């Protein structure tokens, strides 16, 4: 009996990692390439989710299909964010960019609040209530699809950085921007592409998350804190670390919910974070890949 | 009586051995020049000695106090301080305030730090520019500021890292004079990394030559200049006298 519960929690945790990974991977890429701490990461995800919601309410567009719209939209938003706010602060102390993204997060969250109100919204799509059965364990279809798409995208990014020309060039820019520029690499293009990818991935996560959760202007925070924890655990700037970190986080969250009574289960991933940080402050991996 | 003793100092970065079993001793009031081709490990040596880079092996001590595995601030308070090859001032503070930061750790009050700082600025000849902003200083002044900070910290042993790089000949002479007078009047000990051969030969009591992280030779300036191994390391060929 208990065995099934734990097995379910383990698989749930791994499945959740798919979506966590998308957010974390973008965040770590932004940090690795631009040394930027994006406090607006959660809010950008939230904006993506509201766009998905609007497309569904207005046009009946299935959320999974709206990814075709949301991903480019958010990628564009990422480029705008980089060009207008982050690039001018490239020479400023590291707190400046952090603060500017903080400002962006405040603006985004409250604009959405003003427009949509604080009420919870949700989408009802068939896939939202479908589920797979394995013995006594039940897995919502959305979670499985979320995992497949999320992990797929993360691993895709990893392979992209590892094996493609653009990927190698990006890693060069991360390691030594000056040297990369001197080698003829168009560093500006790398930064723009990275911003587009990082926020675009959030769009993907948004499209997949929307059928699964209740929307509110603060939903971004639910995903902001885990993203940062995962990024720090995995090693700042390491995509591989973010992927593995999201699995670790997902597991600790689901196992914590099952093994610890009440809502104290939320403490488990946080305690794990603090403990792991003590043991290995710089995170699991170094380097971009 | 050696004030600084270094035994078997080693630093490995993965597969690269940057500093290889370097051992030497420096007496109080001595000036030890450290030379070697680029990449020989000179700056790494200084970073190791002052705690900025953790050593892989070896130990060193100042007047008997072991310093390995201590933090840079501890090592400074124990009496050894370094200057930086690329000058590292506190950009938004004035010249005097820069030196006051160096003096504050051995002062009981800000006023006392100020007095010590003004004193240090006198020694390096920057007293007139105390109120200036860093941006208005010449490179020679910035290097002098690094020395002033080192002096104000109260250390007995000062590690000067290419403090003459980028200076004109008359500015180099001024630095040589300053170092000699500080040694004479304050009893300070110096380790100097330098590429200007004339200057370092004139200044040093003894010279330590590093190559590929290991000690190649150690001796008086005259002996080093004649040493064929040193000539080969620097020039690639053995000079035929």
């Amino acid at each position, binding site marked *: 009996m208990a065995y099934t519960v734990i097995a379910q929690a383990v698989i749930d945790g791994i499945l959740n990692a798919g979506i966590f990974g998308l957010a974390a991977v973008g965040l770590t890429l932004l940090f690795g390439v631009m040394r930027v701490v994006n406090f607006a990461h959660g809010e950008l995800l939230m904006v993506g989710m509201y766009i998905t919601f609007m497309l569904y309410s207005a046009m009946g567009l299935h959320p999974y299909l709206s990814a075709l719209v949301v991903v480019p939209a958010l990628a564009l938003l990422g480029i705008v964010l980089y060009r207008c706010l982050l690039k001018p*602060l490239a020479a400023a102390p590291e*707190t400046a960019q952090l603060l500017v993204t903080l*400002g962006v997060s405040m603006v985004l969250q409250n604009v959405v609040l003003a427009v949509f109100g604080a009420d919870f919204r949700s989408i009802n799509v068939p896939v939202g209530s479908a589920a797979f059965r394995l013995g006594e364990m039940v897995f919502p279809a959305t979670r499985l699809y979320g995992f497949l798409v999320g992990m797929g995208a993360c691993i895709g990014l990893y392979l992209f950085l590892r094996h493609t020309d653009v990927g190698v060039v990006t890693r060069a820019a991360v390691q030594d921007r000056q040297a990369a520029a001197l080698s003829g690499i168009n560093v500006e293009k790398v930064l723009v592409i990275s911003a587009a990818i990082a926020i675009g991935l959030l769009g993907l996560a948004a499209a997949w998350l929307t059928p699964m959760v209740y929307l509110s202007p603060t939903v971004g925070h639910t995903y902001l804190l885990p993203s940062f924890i995962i990024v720090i655990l995995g090693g700042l700037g390491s995509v591989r670390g973010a992927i593995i970190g999201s699995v670790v986080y997902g597991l600790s969250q689901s196992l914590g919910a099952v093994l610890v009574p009440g809502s104290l289960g939320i403490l488990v991933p946080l305690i794990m974070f*603090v403990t792991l940080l003590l043991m290995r402050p710089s995170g699991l991996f170094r380097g971009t890949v | 009586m050696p004030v600084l003793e270094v035994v078997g100092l080693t630093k490995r970065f993965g597969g690269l051995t940057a500093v290889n079993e370097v051992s030497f001793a420096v007496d109080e009031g001595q000036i030890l020049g450290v030379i070697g081709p680029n990449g020989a490990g000179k700056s790494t040596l200084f970073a190791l000695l002052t705690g900025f880079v953790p050593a892989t092996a070896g130990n060193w001590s100042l007047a008997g106090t072991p310093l390995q595995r201590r*933090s840079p601030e501890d090592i400074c*308070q124990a009496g050894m301080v*370094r200057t930086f090859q690329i000058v*590292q001032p506190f950009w938004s503070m004035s010249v005097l305030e820069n030196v006051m930061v160096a003096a504050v750790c051995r*002062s009981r*009050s800000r006023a006392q730090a100020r007095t010590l700082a003004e004193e240090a600025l006198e020694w390096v000849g920057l007293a007139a520019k105390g109120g200036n902003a860093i941006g208005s200083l010449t490179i020679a002044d910035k290097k002098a500021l690094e020395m002033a900070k080192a002096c104000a910290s109260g250390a007995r042993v000062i590690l000067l890292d290419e403090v003459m790089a980028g200076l004109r000949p008359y500015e180099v002479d001024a630095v040589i004079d300053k170092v000699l007078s500080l040694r004479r009047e304050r009893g300070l000990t110096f380790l100097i990394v330098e590429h200007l051969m004339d200057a370092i030969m004139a200044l040093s009591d003894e010279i330590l030559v590093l190559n590929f992280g290991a000690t190649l030779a150690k001796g008086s300036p005259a002996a080093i200049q004649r040493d064929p191994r040193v000539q080969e390391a620097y020039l690639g060929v053995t000079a035929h006298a």
Partner: protein
Amino acid sequence: MSSTAFKLAVLGVAAAVVALPWVGNTFVITTAIATLYLAYQALAWNLVGGMAGQFSLGNTIFIGAGAYTSTYLFLTYGVSPWLGMIAGAALAMALAYLIGCLTFRLNLRGLYFAMVTLALAQMAQVLVENIPALGAAYGLLIPVRDGDIAAFQFESRAAYYYIILGLVVVAAGIMSGIQRGRLGLMLAGLRENEDAARAVGVPVVRNMQIAFGLSALLAAVGGTFMAQYTLFIDPRSTFSWTESVYFLLPAIVGGTRHWSGPIIGALLLGLVSDTTRLLFGDAINGLPQIIFGIVVIVVVMRTRGGIVDWAVDRWRSRRRAAMKPVSTEATRAGP
């Protein structure tokens, strides 16, 4: 403006501030108290965030420590909140020390410190929400005892006003005192160039711990005050992410280098908040925060240090330009 005119202006402002409860109506006093509290917590944050340069997102932990300790001791044991305040401050300082051990010692500064403090603040919220003795998610209500000074409650609002005013003065005084002493010099060096400061003997961990501990102390005292003023505390309004961010805004906007920075920032933000409420009522939800966000963006992009710092720098560079020595050397500018 001449020196005497300036001094008279300062005296005038001070007189107006002191006399406010006599001339203002309830709305004015309430707003003033809220603004002063914001300024106070901003000054507390600035000790660690601005002066030590460590971006703390966890000051709500200390505010909560102060509020919950004094309230719990009062409700359960009848301990006067004045004493409870001291206990709360002690707890906050202990927590700050532990957090400092976790972060400063391990070289986890900058982003790490921000994230760890944020995570810990979230942990605090969840923890308190699950402890029935602390009111769980519903919070704690303090019974009204009007005029019972030993119970830290006063009949008139004016008393609260003067208390928070006094606290602001104390906090500003502490910040000013630190800046003019040894600690301020060391923190400034660490902030500007940590390696260079350490190279000349400035201890990092100890100074960070001191700044953080002081910040925690002040925050906790403020927490007790707020608990006694509103007579209600709950985890959500104490530890939330929004709260954590709220108290650092004035210092960012107003400036971190001078004690007037957080105060001016608080005044500005308070002004924005009240003006929008006056003009739009509650029609546009969250409008003040939108404006705050925009203000932060603009300030960070334009001034790189807050309004007061920017003004002081401009004034200083104008003065320095007047006494700049003649130099024909080409100088290398910038780090």
